[in-house]
């Protein structure tokens, strides 16, 4: 009886060429785990770095090979759970490029001897060897226990590489997920490695671990919200596919309560990942506590993934009901911009300052998402690309400014930096100008395209508010410039470590992209505007 049905089951058709980039990344991550187990310790770093970079390059080539022949309106594959359409391809490209630059930054081990990461096991070995009583809990600021790995090599803890690849694979799936359950799984795949990576800092271990726990707890809440929202929406539409939800909402007498409660919970989960106020509380602590290279990866890539998914959910699933929820996002955008800009003013720590800046930028991005127009889609994605490279390079610069206790992130120790390292100060100033949105930087073009899309959709009051908050935020970027250029160097202040080749590439790539997209943004705008969502 059941036999007939079993034989009728055929394996789902999979468009392997379309999803090849994701497969390569996730496959390389799995290989990385095996390498971690079998490759001798002194070889691991070079093997892992090579495998990861080759995987990213391979995924990039696969993507590049697929794009020219890709169907214009996109394809859905794996029983319609993944939609590989123009936005997904653009975001994949963005993610891969950002991840490549971030991975180089993570792999850096000359700035901090032995790299910025430590594993719990290595730490215990070091602490035990030193006869320390409080195993595993060295001091916070300036705690240098574990500075040398137990075996004394200049190697580096390398589990961070497969973790990065797993997170990246999750992100790529996240932005292409066509149904909410796939999206949830992708969310977990991208989040869990990030929680771990946050706690890996070699120095200031308590701060790093605190940030990991905080991120994990709040992230778990957000995931629960997301999942609960998915459940309610399934109850509403009888399907988790975004297209079905849109159809169900288009003309039915089903319970609006289920729809909007589900929508609200779902969006909370997404806003949390995008560090949008008022769901931003984790951002400053995590950005400050995590190893700077991980922060750079998170700030750039997670933002892209979260907003990519948000675009898809809102454009595909909830465009028809936008009148009902637009007001809520208005409030969210305003709160996010206000929190980011105003609280950013009070920060003394450069990493926290950039964290608040990212909250303000998230507010601008929400405006772009809310437009629900083609130009808004292209504008938001361009903004993500521009912001990702700028913020990644900014964190890479932060990692170079050090004193005896490691990274000197307090603003006071940056005094007079321009006298000692004019080049790094100049680059950082340029990046700050980009974050502030001054013309001839990608930040300005991003703001310009987002705001013109928003004005075209009648969001004028929001745009004016956004511009005012941009000006407020400019003050704290400018303060760093003042400290670097116009104040006298303090005795015992920080100095700039000569970066290794890897960090140099990261900074150079971020800066060049920021400049290029600022001066000649036409080609990227064209890619971003290539087409809409498939579903």
């Amino acid at each position, binding site marked *: 009886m059941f036999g007939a049905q079993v034989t009728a089951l055929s394996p789902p058709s999979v468009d392997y060429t379309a999803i090849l980039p994701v497969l390569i990344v996730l496959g390389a991550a799995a290989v990385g785990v095996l390498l971690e187990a079998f490759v001798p310790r002194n070889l691991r770093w070079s093997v892992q770095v090579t495998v990861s970079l080759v995987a990213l390059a391979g995924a990039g080539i696969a993507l590049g090979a697929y794009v020219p022949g890709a169907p214009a309106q996109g394809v859905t594959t794996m029983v319609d759970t993944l939609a590989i359409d123009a936005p997904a391809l653009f975001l994949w490209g963005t993610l891969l490029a950002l991840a490549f630059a971030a991975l180089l930054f993570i792999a850096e081990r000359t700035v901090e001897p032995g790299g910025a990461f430590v594993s719990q096991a290595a730490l215990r070995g070091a602490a035990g060897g030193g006869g320390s009583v409080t195993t595993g809990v060295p001091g916070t600021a300036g705690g240098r226990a574990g500075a040398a790995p137990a075996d004394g090599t200049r190697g580096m803890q390398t589990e961070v590489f497969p973790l990065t690849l797993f997170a990246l694979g999750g992100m790529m799936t996240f932005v292409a997920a066509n149904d909410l359950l796939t999206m949830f799984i992708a969310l977990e795949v991208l989040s869990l490695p990030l929680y771990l990576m946050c706690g890996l800092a070699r120095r200031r271990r308590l701060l790093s671990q605190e940030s990991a726990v905080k991120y994990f707890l709040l992230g778990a809440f957000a995931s629960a919200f997301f999942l609960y929202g998915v459940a309610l929406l399934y109850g509403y539409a009888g399907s988790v596919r975004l297209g079905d939800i849109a159809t169900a909402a288009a003309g039915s007498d089903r319970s609006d309560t289920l729809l909007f409660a589900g929508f609200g919970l779902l969006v909370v989960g997404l806003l949390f990942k995008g560090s949008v106020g008022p769901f931003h509380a984790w951002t400053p602590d995590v950005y400050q506590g995590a190893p700077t290279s991980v922060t750079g990866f998170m700030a750039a890539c997670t933002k892209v993934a979260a907003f990519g998914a948000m675009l898809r959910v809102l454009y595909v699933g909830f465009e028809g009901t936008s009148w009902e929820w637009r007001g809520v996002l208005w409030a969210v955008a305003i709160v996010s911009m206000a929190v980011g800009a105003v609280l950013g003013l009070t920060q003394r720590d450069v990493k926290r300052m950039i964290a608040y800046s990212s909250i303000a930028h998230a507010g601008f991005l929400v405006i772009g998402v809310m437009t629900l127009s083609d130009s808004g889609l292209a504008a938001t994605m361009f903004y993500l690309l521009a912001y990702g490279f700028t913020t990644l390079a900014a964190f890479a610069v932060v990692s170079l400014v050090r004193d005896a206790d490691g990274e000197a992130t307090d603003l006071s120790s940056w005094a007079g930096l321009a006298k000692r390292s004019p080049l790094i100060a100049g680059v950082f100033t340029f990046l700050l*100008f980009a974050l502030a*949105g*001054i*013309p*001839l930087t990608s930040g*300005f*073009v991003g703001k*310009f*395209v987002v*705001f*013109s899309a928003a*004005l*075209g959709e009648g969001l*004028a009051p929001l*745009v*004016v508010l956004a*511009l*005012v908050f*941009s*000006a407020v935020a*400019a*003050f704290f970027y*400018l*303060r760093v410039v*003042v400290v670097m*250029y*116009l*104040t006298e160097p303090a005795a015992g202040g920080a100095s700039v470590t000569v970066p290794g080749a890897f960090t140099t590439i990261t900074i150079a790539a971020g800066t060049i992209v920021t400049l290029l997209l600022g001066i*000649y*943004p*036409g080609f990227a*705008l*064209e890619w971003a*505007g290539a087409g809409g969502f498939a579903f």
Partner: protein
Amino acid sequence: MTWLLALILLPLVGAAAVAGLRGNDRLATLTAFGFSLATLLLVVPLWAGYEPAGDRMQQTSSVEWIPQFGIHFAFGIDGIALVMIAVIALLVPLVIGVLGVTDKLPEGRSAGGYLSLLLVQQSLTIGVFAATDVFLFYVLFEVMLIPMYFLIGAYGGPNRQYAAVKFFLYSFLGGLIMLASVIGSYVLAADELGEGTFDWATLVSVVSDAPLGTQVWLFLGFFLAFAVKAPLVPLHTWLPDAAGQAPIGVAVVLVGVLDKVGTFGFLRYCLPMFPAASVELAPLVLTLAVAGVLYGSVLAAGQQDMKRFIAYVSIAHFGFIALGIFAFTTQAQVGSVTYMVNHSLATGMLILVVGMVIARGGSSTISDYGGMAKLTPLLGGMMLLAGLATLALPGTNAFVSEFLVLLGAFESRPVFAVLAVLGMVLAAVYVLWLYQRVMQGPVRGDALVGAGGGPGAVQAPETGARKAIRDTSPRELAVLAPLIVLIIGLGLYPKPVVDVVTPSVEATLSAVQEGDER
């Protein structure tokens, strides 16, 4: 390549060349001076090739920049832009000429950085006047802040950081609000034409047809940015700090040319693009303008610091210029445009002279001086001349402009004109009072006598003043000479400037009238 493009690019090349000469201050100064002189020479063919009766925009060139938004690198000049470009091309070599003599850079700063920022500033400023693409204008308008920010912040007086940040934030906020209007105009044009563009002429033709309500909002965005730049009360508070802390040369460029971008913006953008709103809101603007004239004058009289004094004088003069622009008569507007030139010359000279006084006495406080004309008669004479030009004595260039503004404004707005006349009276008071306090009477004041000179100061027996105080050097005279020639020359024969700007002013005004009648 047009002369105009060469004029924009040459200072940039100079900046790059000078930036490479960080070690050698003298060579850097000479190189920068050479480039600025070459730039000035380029103005000659530009001016000669300009036909006042010809097209609205001349020397045009356009290259596509961001096709998705219809953005071009488009440059061109009308008469108003031409005279302003000529002014900055004239002022920059003079400013470089006083570097190291009148202007001393703070310890440990090299001349190379200063000069290269100055030349970048010049290039961007010329670009702002020449841009005929609204997006390009906005970009240059904002980027222009960066070199000025560093010029004030790195090379200025003791309170320079505060002044630089205040300057930047005021202008940046104004600029961002203008950005909203820039995008708004673009969206309006995109809706109307089906395809967006930032071309100035196209935007003017589309946006000037918009309903009054829309126009008012867009107008306010532009107006706010320009009102910060050409400081109108109550948005003026950054100028006394910025001009007071800036090095003398930078103050000349800032007050002389950069602030004129605001009044230039009124003429180029606010009026033609939003004619109905301009007429509707003219009473508001005129009120602010006259308030500026009176408020600036009164505060100028009360200043203790000479550089802040000049800043307040300028605020009063910007009130006059705005009054002329928004009086909507040809006479008044021609007066305003020539005033933009003449104010640059007269105030530029006053700032330079005050800089020379400060360089001798080592203090910018007025009460540290007294009877200085006895020690430096030539410098005293220069200060009197610059002061008289500032208060618009007949025979000096500013008189022609001020007279035209008041005459034109009296036709259309008699009440405002009469109130502004009070400003002329006050000007005589504050300028002559300054001259009297600094130059007249017995030699006195810490800067000139005894204590100010420190322990090593040698005093001249007959006056009790420090011997180190000498009269103007030939180099200083050479810097002031072109300004003196122009101040008196344009005072007696203003026709060259008036002829060049009148057709552009008439075109602007006719746009307002057409737009207002619709």
